[in-house]
């Protein structure tokens, strides 16, 4: 196994998992919502892209449209379902998100049926570049670029802007922020919009990899996101980065190391390691979040 190749693949996969984790972590940081409907938002991006492509629009317009649709879906879910539960116990929020996931899935099954629908991807994304030391696909490059841009953008947005300051204040103490006339409804709507945008961007990469979307395809992205935030710690940018990268490298290493009869047990080994990490560090590798993704 080429170590350099393993590093490149791990980093690219880790970048995707990091983005997944960021979207979930962001919402958790401001309202302690563990959003199990997140994977379905990603699936819905896939269906929107599938439908838009059918209209014959150019690819980039389809992507923009699906991104806008995903952001809108996230905002509607937030305002109609999640925000009325602000201040409810975490278990209530969790159950609400399960309900949302089931509804989103049922609607998808009714509209699109059970079989997989194709999600078109430009050929350029699927071509590989061989540098001589390692091979990297354009899609992997895109994942890395998206991940890096997202990281820098979020760091700036949360740390340096007015809305970022309000997000951090709301995350640390929603009731005191309210006392200072911070409009928590606006902050939460913004955070859900951002989380929806992240879901859409990561879905773009996700479905380009698989080439198709199914109504029950939400489990994998939801699970990866949760494993990543559980490893790194919920509610911080650092936690999402570390958790995503660790999970990406673990998976890549497992697929390289496990050969023959063992190759089907990649996920088993990954989860065994995750359980081990949690036994040693129950609050994730980086410990508890202090507030607002910091």
């Amino acid at each position, binding site marked *: 196994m080429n170590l350099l190749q393993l590093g490149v693949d791990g980093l690219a996969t880790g970048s995707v998992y990091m983005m997944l984790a960021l979207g979930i972590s962001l919402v958790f940081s401001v309202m302690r919502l563990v959003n199990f409907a997140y994977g379905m938002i990603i699936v819905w991006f896939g269906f929107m892209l599938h439908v838009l492509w059918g209209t014959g629009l150019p690819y980039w317009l389809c992507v923009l449209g699906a991104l806008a649709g995903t952001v809108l879906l996230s905002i509607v879910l937030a305002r109609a379902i999640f925000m009325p539960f602000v201040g409810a116990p975490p278990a209530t929020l969790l159950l609400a998100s399960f309900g949302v996931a089931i509804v989103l899935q049922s609607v998808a099954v009714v509209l699109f049926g059970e079989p997989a629908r194709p999600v078109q991807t430009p050929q350029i994304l699927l071509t590989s570049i061989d540098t001589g030391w390692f091979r990297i696909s354009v899609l992997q490059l895109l994942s890395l670029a998206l991940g890096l841009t997202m990281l820098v953008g979020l760091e700036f947005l949360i740390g340096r802007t*007015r809305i970022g*300051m*309000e997000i*951090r*204040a709301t*995350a*640390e*103490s929603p*009731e*005191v*922020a*309210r*006392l*200072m*006339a*911070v*409009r928590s409804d606006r902050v939460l709507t913004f955070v859900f919009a951002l989380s929806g945008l992240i879901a859409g961007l990561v879905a773009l990469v996700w479905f380009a990899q698989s080439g198709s979307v199914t109504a029950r395809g939400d489990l994998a992205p939801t699970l990866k996101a949760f494993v990543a935030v559980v490893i790194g710690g919920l509610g911080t940018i650092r936690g999402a980065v570390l958790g995503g990268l660790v999970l990406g490298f673990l998976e890549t290493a497992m697929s390289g190391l496990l050969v023959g009869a063992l190759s089907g047990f990649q996920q088993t080994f990954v989860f065994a390691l995750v359980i081990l990490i949690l036994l040693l560090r129950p609050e994730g590798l980086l410990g508890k979040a*202090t*507030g*607002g993704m*910091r």
Partner: protein
Amino acid sequence: MLELDRVSTGYGRVRALDTVSLTLGAGHTLAVLGPNGAGKSTLLKLVAGLQAPWSGTLKLDGSADLSPLDVTARVHRGIVLCPEGRRIFTTLSVEENLCIGGTALLARPGGAQRMREGLERAYSLFPILAERRHGPGSALSGGQQQMLAIARALMAEPRLLLLDEPSLGLSPVMADEVYATLAALKAEGMTLIVVEEAAGRPLGLADTAMILRNGRTVWRGAAAAARDPDLLQRAYLGDHAA
């Protein structure tokens, strides 16, 4: 400025305030005293809009009924609560704490300019905050955190400032400093309600005082008259203690 008429409220089925009335004129300071659990904080929450009344009326400026206004709307009307235990944002810098305090200004004309002026005023009032402006709120001492909590509340340009136990947990020197600041605000014409368990400092500052016990008003009158130790003892502990 503020008028409460026979207001009752509570938590769940437990009554915390029982038919409490008060009148507070503009520029005046009211000290609300009483033992732990008397309903003092609940009274402030009621005025700030964090707690809804079960019965009775709250009026601002003679006519406007406060009940339909939520916390944010009341901040915009000039009612600002400086909460118990300071509750500064420890993950935000000192200056960011102040900027969050000034959120209400941004909705008004010239908001950004007023925010800058507010920061300048806060730093001239509390020079230590200017020194620590870029440091995290968590790095401040207890007294400095109380200064920041007051400065943060002032950023919203309150007409009626509600202070919940501003001297709690502070050294006597620090507590004196906090009350010197409050006296300066009073001299500028601000209307204050100060809640404290310890009577000495607030009675030195206030024009009028009320003493609560078990949610009821047991004494109301001029602050100077409340400085009688016998009166305080009876009011805090009940008549059988005297």
